[in-house]
């Protein structure tokens, strides 16, 4: 595994030393559980670790570290803080509109399709793509891989059940993204929650995968990896982009978050900008 040979976080030129206790915690987590957060961007990770500390009621990171290495259950609770699980259905509608109007015509030309949602969190993006493809008549020949490092998120994603209070916003996004029907065609509401249609779920394979430690596992025509790379340091961004690149077929598409870019990456020459404002790239 390439991650085991990664250097420990380096001290920044001109900056202050990174938090030694945080580094120690991340090393311990990697040794014990093989989750590698060592090359995550420190600033936001530190905030999330701090709120975990408050949540668990420990005074110092050293105490948290000591407990976490002994208690896998505590680690799985901590994982919820370390990973970011905020998402929406059709988050950034213009991205999905561009996929529908500009990328789908290319996808149509393939007899069968594989799509990878890398860092799917609780599944909203995967369901968004499934709905979009269903409306374009492509879902039947598509397999969507949706991966994340958090088992808990993957369970939520697989269940496809979300609070009904979120559906007003989901529905607005769906329409803004160029939805052709009504979002309610795709779910069944029961009391305070709503579950997505089995047809959508059948097209999605949820699975564990880490962009920090694992490699490419399939050849796909589209990768959607949104607001994942911003949580990584440059070096890890590059590693992750290498995995995404290796997964894409020739002329395959890569969609990033609206504030993410390939511009600073060593992989930039392998791609051309396809829809610049929505951060959709095509592999050369």
């Amino acid at each position, binding site marked *: 595994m390439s991650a085991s040979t990664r250097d420990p976080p380096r001290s920044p030129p001109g900056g202050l030393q990174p938090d030694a206790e945080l580094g120690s915690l991340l090393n311990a987590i990697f040794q014990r559980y093989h989750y590698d957060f060592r090359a995550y*961007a420190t600033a936001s990770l530190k905030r999330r670790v701090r709120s975990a500390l408050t949540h668990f009621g420990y005074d110092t990171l050293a105490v948290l570290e000591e407990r976490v290495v002994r208690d896998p259950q505590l680690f799985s609770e901590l994982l919820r803080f370390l990973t*970011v699980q905020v998402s929406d259905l059709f988050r950034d509608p213009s991205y999905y509109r561009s996929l529908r109007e500009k990328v789908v015509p290319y996808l149509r030309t393939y007899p069968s399709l594989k799509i990878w949602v890398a860092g799917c969190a609780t599944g909203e993006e995967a369901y968004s793509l499934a709905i979009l493809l269903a409306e374009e008549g492509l879902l039947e020949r598509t397999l969507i891989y949706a991966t994340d490092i958090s088992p808990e998120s993957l369970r939520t994603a697989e269940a496809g059940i979300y609070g009904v209070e979120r559906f007003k916003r989901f529905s607005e996004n769906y329409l803004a993204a160029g939805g052709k029907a009504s979002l309610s065609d795709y779910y069944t509401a029961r009391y305070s929650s709503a579950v997505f249609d089995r047809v959508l779920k059948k097209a999605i394979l949820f699975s564990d995968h880490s962009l920090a430690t694992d490699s490419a596992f399939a050849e796909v025509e589209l990768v959607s990896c949104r607001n994942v790379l911003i949580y990584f340091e440059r070096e890890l961004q590059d590693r992750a982009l290498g995995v995404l690149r290796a997964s894409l077929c020739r002329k395959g598409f890569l969609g990033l978050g609206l504030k993410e870019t390939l511009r600073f990456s060593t992989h930039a020459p392998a791609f051309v900008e396809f829809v610049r404002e929505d951060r959709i790239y095509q592999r050369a």
Partner: protein
Amino acid sequence: MGDVKAIVVGGSAGALDALSQILPALPAGFSIPIALVLHVHPGKPSYLAPLLANRCQLTVKEAEDKEPLAPATIYVAPPNYHLLVEPRRCLSLSVDDPVLFSRPAIDVLFESAADAYGAELAGLLLTGGSEDGARGLAEIKRKGGLTIVQAPSTASVPTMPQAALRLAPIDQVLPLPEIGPYLAQLHSGARNIQGEAWRRS
């Protein structure tokens, strides 16, 4: 404490007008990078950078992820993203939960910048209608940095500077017209000569 190597600025209601008065006082060669969080509607596209660029001599741009901080540049948080400073002194973005109902949140910028710059940071909190930024200023002070708030009497909405004065040790409480000139003298070591005289404590 060392020279100021970065300035972080936060504000909410009324802050755009306040900045229109503050920024013209900064010379084109102003060497200290500035990172800025203003509360804006998350659904709106970014309009802040071009708007502010028209009103000052510095480069104003929307912050990009992992971008190093450069002199004579103002970095604006994009709508719906938190803006942070990494320990290696570059900017980063996140979509973590809103803080005090805000994303971007001023506390998130201030606290991360305090970590990265310690005593070499100055934090400025302007007019606004929330308590965002007060905790951040307290953290900047705790790390030895310089804390500045707009005098509440000159703020169109005084809640934010008042909260800061209540919750954080503040070095300078400045009326709006004095903020620009004060920042201007922070650069290129000017504060070494006369700076300590500005400091209250």
